[in-house]
């Protein structure tokens, strides 16, 4: 890895509906003997009984950028807080942002793509969502925020598993999978989990977008359909034409951005020896060449969308028509 990217401070975003167990997880992370120090950005000081100099209160000020686009939002308080924290960057190894139970994770993630200073000095590691095994199914029905948090997650702690039966657990896992088949799910009680399963995930790192498995949905796993939120993924053995792909993805995300929560892709372009990887949050896209294709790997382009009301057929046709 180049020096510049390894020097960036990793940021983990903790989310989850009210009462799911976020604060318990946070306290575990901070109290485990891992030898690391974290700056913690929280909304409520009250519950956190930790002895840490670098706990900062956040206001969750979500800003629309002045471009008239409703989904291009960033967290203004995070920009200010990170700017301030970076002045004492030798005091900690990472930043953890705990969002409120009702927060949409998108403005947090977009802050790391949109703000030049934040993007240059920090890297979004992963969105970690804590879900209550007993109540998640109800929240998916009545709370759009809870659904967004599941759709957005890279890592999901299915917490309070001691309160439900094994059958109920499988059922709720399938419902999660119907929305987001790509997140890593860990079953936990009282948010107990090894810290290396939560931190250092590299889920937003373009060098590490590997968790794209287009066969997942085809293997008969999908017992549930979420009528509103879903994920779709496609693969193409045909090399793509960048002059077709980029206009397509840009037009698509501009038009459907409010409905597309996250997108990821690993792409093989014609006459290009390197893998191109990209990811997006709503309309905001980030992409780069990653590394040369290895001789032993199939040059297959893969792409994933997680969102609301996605037109699977149109997306597939659009993607396949980008073939060179």
């Amino acid at each position, binding site marked *: 890895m180049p020096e510049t990217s390894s020097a960036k401070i990793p940021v983990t975003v903790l989310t989850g509906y009210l009462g799911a167990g976020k604060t318990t997880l946070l306290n575990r992370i901070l109290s485990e003997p891992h030898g690391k120090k974290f700056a913690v950005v929280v909304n409520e*000081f009250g519950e956190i009984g930790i002895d840490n*100099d670098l706990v*900062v*209160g956040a*206001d969750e*000020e979500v*800003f*629309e*950028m*002045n*471009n008239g686009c409703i989904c291009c939002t*960033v967290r*203004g*308080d995070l*920009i*200010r807080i990170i700017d*301030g*924290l*970076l*002045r*004492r960057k*030798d005091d900690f190894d990472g930043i953890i942002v705990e969002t409120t139970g009702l927060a949409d994770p998108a403005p947090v993630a977009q802050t790391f793509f949109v*703000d*030049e*200073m934040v993007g240059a000095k920090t890297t979004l590691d992963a969105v970690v969502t804590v879900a209550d095994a007993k109540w998640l199914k109800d929240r998916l029905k009545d709370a759009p925020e809870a659904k967004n948090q599941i759709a957005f997650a890279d890592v999901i702690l299915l917490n309070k598993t001691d309160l439900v039966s094994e059958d109920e657990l499988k059922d709720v896992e399938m419902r999660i999978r119907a929305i987001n088949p790509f997140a890593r799910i860990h079953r936990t009680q009282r948010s107990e989990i090894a810290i290396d399963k939560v931190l250092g995930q590299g889920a937003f790192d373009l060098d590490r977008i590997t968790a794209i498995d287009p066969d997942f949905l085809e293997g008969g796993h999908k017992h549930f359909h979420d009528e509103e939120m879903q994920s779709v993924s496609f693969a193409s053995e045909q090399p793509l034409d960048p002059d077709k792909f980029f206009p397509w993805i840009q037009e698509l995300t501009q038009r459907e951005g409010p409905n597309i929560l996250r997108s990821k892709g690993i792409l093989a372009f014609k006459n290009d020896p390197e893998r191109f990887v990209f990811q997006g949050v709503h309309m905001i896209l980030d992409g780069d060449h990653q590394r040369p294709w290895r001789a032993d790997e199939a040059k297959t382009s893969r792409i994933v969308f997680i969102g609301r009301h996605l037109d699977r057929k149109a997306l597939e046709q659009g993607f396949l028509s980008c073939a060179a």
Partner: protein
Amino acid sequence: MTALSSSPSSMPSSITSKLQPLDLGDGVVGAGFLGTRAVFALGSREIVLAGETVERVAAHNGAILSVSSDARRILTGGDDGRVVATAGDGSTQTLFEQKGRWIDQVAAGPDGSVAFSVGKTAHFQPLKGERRTLDLPSTVGGLAFAPKGTRLAIAHYGGATLWFPNAQAKPEVLAWKGSHRGVLWHPDGRFVITTMQEPALHGWRLADGANMRMSGYPARVNFMSFTSGGRFLATSGSNEAILWPFATKEGPMGKQPTMLAPRDMRVSCVAAHPKDEVFACGYDDGLVLLVRVSDGAEILARAPAGGPVSALAWRADGGALAIGTQEGVGGLIVL
């Protein structure tokens, strides 16, 4: 200042031999002058006073977030919740403290008064008398005293608010979509300018509330400074210094900016000379030029080193320049 006011042909191409290099030890947040001593506020709690000797003062118990100064003291706001005034003799005085909060902005008033902000609340402390506060709709991004009197401009999400802390009148709101960060008054008080979250400036002409949108930057503008007399607003954020014309009462509306000192490197900091139409221009690689507006003549003041220039300050008489960088090196030039 003879070098700067002489003709271009007689100007030395470099004054780097006059630079007294300083190893400050941590990123420089702001700079100023107290008497003949240059003052640097560092990210890590310390203030360095540099002249014939170098003195370090631990002003805060955490990072310094904001800096403002006048001839008598340097004001700093910290993540330790304190507003501290440091004098030229190195003595410090805590003016305000609110544990567990950050002092995001500080501003030194012309008559010894002080303004600062904690989250969404702006505070005004007159030299004598009671402190007054104003709650804003969102977190304060910038604070600036009007050139005369005690009127304050407060930048925030959705615009700026003009506040007379000593008057009963309702604060005046200057609305414009987006997040406003830094704020600056024109020297004669006719215009208020903000830097925005996106790569643009916004301005208001106070006489009629007209909006002025100054855009086209490749990156966010972090520094702006009016040249002596207020004819130009020099700004960072591009690969050259961008100067917007403010000589007429219309301001820059419908006019193109002047672009000076282009390089293949981002301008990270600018500071106008207090007397001549000259400004110091610092870049992302640590290089500093002195640039004359009339003909664009450039003098090299500091060679590249130490990361982006993060602070530039002139002595009130224009006879010295303090330079600080993000990586904690800097220097003092006595002209």
